[in-house]
């Protein structure tokens, strides 16, 4: 489709797509269990071994293969990111759209509620939610979703307000089109562009937050590997086993970088001004 072709011509788009593709493949392989070693198997003889022939990225405290754990870890972190951002995007779109369309009272209520959530620094809000629901995969998803919903609400409400004044919405009103029809066929379809850009940037941010939560010991739980957990485990072993810190950190940075690049490229592709330069 046109967007994909334009994306592949955009320099940062190309890098972004390649990086994400590599990690996506690794994640799928990881979740399917097709990893060089069993991520949970503890090899007593190979504890804290540096990168070498059998274990390309070395082993951790229990002699488990870090590469395999990274593959599963990426899978889990991606899963958390996709789920939470999906939830947030869904909730944000509904709230933003209805707030823009009905305006006045409902708009005020929604925006004030969003202000309340936004007034909480993201990590604190996540901390409270995780403390209530207890640490774990599901909790991380819920925490990140709640933290990110206000941002999606605003990203949707802005353009929706301006779309509402466009003549094709007036035209639809003159035909007597139903409110639902207008919201979905006219407003929503034209919000796909800003939403896609925000989703990719949100994915990058969600990965960072999931890592931070695990770093504080509140994210996904052992023994299932998550990027943040592997990072926090490596904290005290920085000197004796630096590879335990370097590889997970690199994976987090590169995957987040990939999404950021993709988000940037998508913004250029969707922006009519720059699209002509690319087409």
């Amino acid at each position: 489709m046109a967007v994909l072709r334009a994306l592949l011509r955009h320099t940062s788009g190309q890098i972004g797509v390649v990086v994400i593709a590599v990690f996506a493949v690794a994640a799928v392989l990881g979740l399917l269990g097709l990893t060089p070693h069993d991520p949970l198997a503890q090899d007593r003889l190979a504890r804290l071994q540096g990168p070498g022939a059998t274990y390309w990225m070395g082993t951790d405290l229990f002699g488990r293969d870090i590469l395999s754990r990274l593959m599963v870890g990426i899978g889990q972190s991606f899963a958390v990111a996709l789920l939470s951002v999906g939830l947030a995007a869904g909730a944000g779109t509904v709230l933003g759209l209805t707030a823009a369309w009905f305006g006045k009272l409902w708009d005020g209520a929604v925006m004030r509620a969003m202000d309340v959530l936004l007034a909480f620094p993201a990590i604190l809000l996540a901390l409270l939610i995780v403390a209530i629901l207890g640490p774990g995969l599901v909790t991380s998803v819920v925490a990140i979703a709640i933290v990110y919903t206000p941002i999606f609400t605003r990203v949707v409400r802005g353009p929706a307000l301006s779309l509402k004044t466009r003549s094709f919405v007036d035209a639809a009103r003159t035909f007597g089109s139903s409110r639902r029809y207008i919201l979905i066929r006219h407003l929503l379809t034209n919000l796909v562009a800003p939403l896609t850009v925000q989703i990719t940037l949100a994915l990058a941010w969600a990965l960072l937050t999931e890592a931070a939560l695990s770093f504080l010991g509140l994210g996904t739980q052992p023994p299932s590997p998550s990027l943040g957990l592997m990072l926090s485990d490596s904290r005290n072993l920085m000197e004796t086993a630096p590879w335990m810190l370097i590889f997970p950190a690199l994976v987090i940075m590169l995957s987040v970088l990939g999404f950021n690049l993709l988000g940037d490229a998508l913004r250029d592709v969707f922006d009519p001004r720059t699209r002509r330069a690319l087409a």
Partner: protein
Amino acid sequence: MTLLSVRDLRVGFGREGHETEVVHGVDFDVTAGETLAIVGESGSGKSVTAMAINRLIDFGGGRILGGRATFDRKIDLATASEGQMQRLRGREIGMIFQEPMTSLNPVLKVGTQIGEVFRKQHGLSGRAVRDASIRALDRVRIPDAARRLDQAPHQMSGGMLQRVMIAIALAGEPRLLIADEPTTALDVTIQAQIMGLLAELKRDTGTGLIFITHDIGLVAGLADRIMVMRGGEAVENGAADQVLDRPAHDYTRHLLGAVPHFRAGQAARTDGARTGQVPALDVRGLSVRFPVGGGFLRKTRGVVHAVDGVSFDLVPGETLGIVGESGSGKSTTARAILDLVRPSAGRIETGGTAAVQMVFQNPNASLNPRMTVRGLLAEPVIAAGQNVDADVLERMRTLLGRVDLPDDLDRFPHEFSGGQRQRLCIARALMLNPKVLVLDEAVSALDVSVQAKVLDLLVDLQREFGLAYLFVSHDMAVVERIAHRIAVLYAGRIVEVGAARDVLSSPRHPYTQKLISAIPSIDRRRIDYTLDTEEVPSLLRPVGFVPPDQTWQEVGPDHRVAKEPLS
């Protein structure tokens, strides 16, 4: 003495080495005190040529590919360095742009944006800068100049902003002034004021003027020489009278003939006659008022009376033209009929809900970019509760054919030209066999030659389907070609209404007369514009204000004039 002589100018856009050429070798001269008009439709390369002279295209991704532009017989602008150009711009070559609302920096005061020119070009400072700025504003007839200096651009009207732009351009006392469609975005009466101002300044200062426009009628009153451009080439270049009266190139003839020009009533339609049918649309005492400054905890500051007691009716097959300048309430009237704006008072009688459909001004904005032709045309049918079956698709195809569009239901709006898109809107409006079509500035966003085609299509459709048109527009030339009857709207009220021929040939209300006199036409040459600076009156009334009743004076079989003086 020739101020500027341009020989074989070629300009292109795109990356180094493989530019696409847009201006293919243009030659012209400008002498001091003379006005050269460059006329052409959009895409003809007229603006690019102008911007090439003071090398502003260098910042827009373009480059001069070849030719020479000798200024003051000394310096070749085509090859001058950026440093040399910076010394020329503002001091020797001034420029005025099309959109006054966006040409001034929104966050800086007007005084600052004028003062900085005096500071740079004349080395003034402190009090002197302020005094010079006030003198500059007085010269362009801006009332109460001192107070205006401290205002921000968004607090001034389009006309006033354009005057500021002129003041800025002339502050450096340039010997050559380039005006790129300076009045296109303005109302016709304001346009007349700006043309008058330019004419006067040219006489006083003797600057050379390059006036760029798409409206050949407009330049008749100002230009000494006219150059017509098309597709990046100068197709004709000669003295004004010679080009207007004995055009050599058939494209010039097309511009003079086919494009709608105001003929003060001669070109009005004669085929309509009111034979007492039942009106398809009857509007009685329509008023629309907006409270201003209301809301949470603060009382309303006043009420804008956008439309104040407008009444008219429309019989099938007849076109009523509603004419007025911006702020007259003509668009609000149209939108009130379609209930897009809630009327505060008055009755609107139509023959059933789907009887009235609307066509909007900007074809790009009135078609959802993400919908195919099928989706667009199907929407009214779905909205009316029917499902899209075979004969609905059949109707789509016939209508597409009828508006001369390719029979391809899977295309997207961006695959059509402006004119085609507006015809698609018309087809969509006809899907439910309406009785009345409300056309709100339906052709003003189109190119002049495309306007003619759409107007002819509308007339044919009217005859074939017996449609009644409510045609709202600020362009008298266009209204003259399509309206049977004309109503002139001023400050939310009808001041004169009647048969088009009578209203246009012998206008009786002072405002109508002023409006018609301000309309440029090919027949009037080198007119000296009477200078006035009247602004559109504010429609903000105190809360509870009740407008006085209108009394009419019958001046012809179908020609009435409101007696009240302009409020």
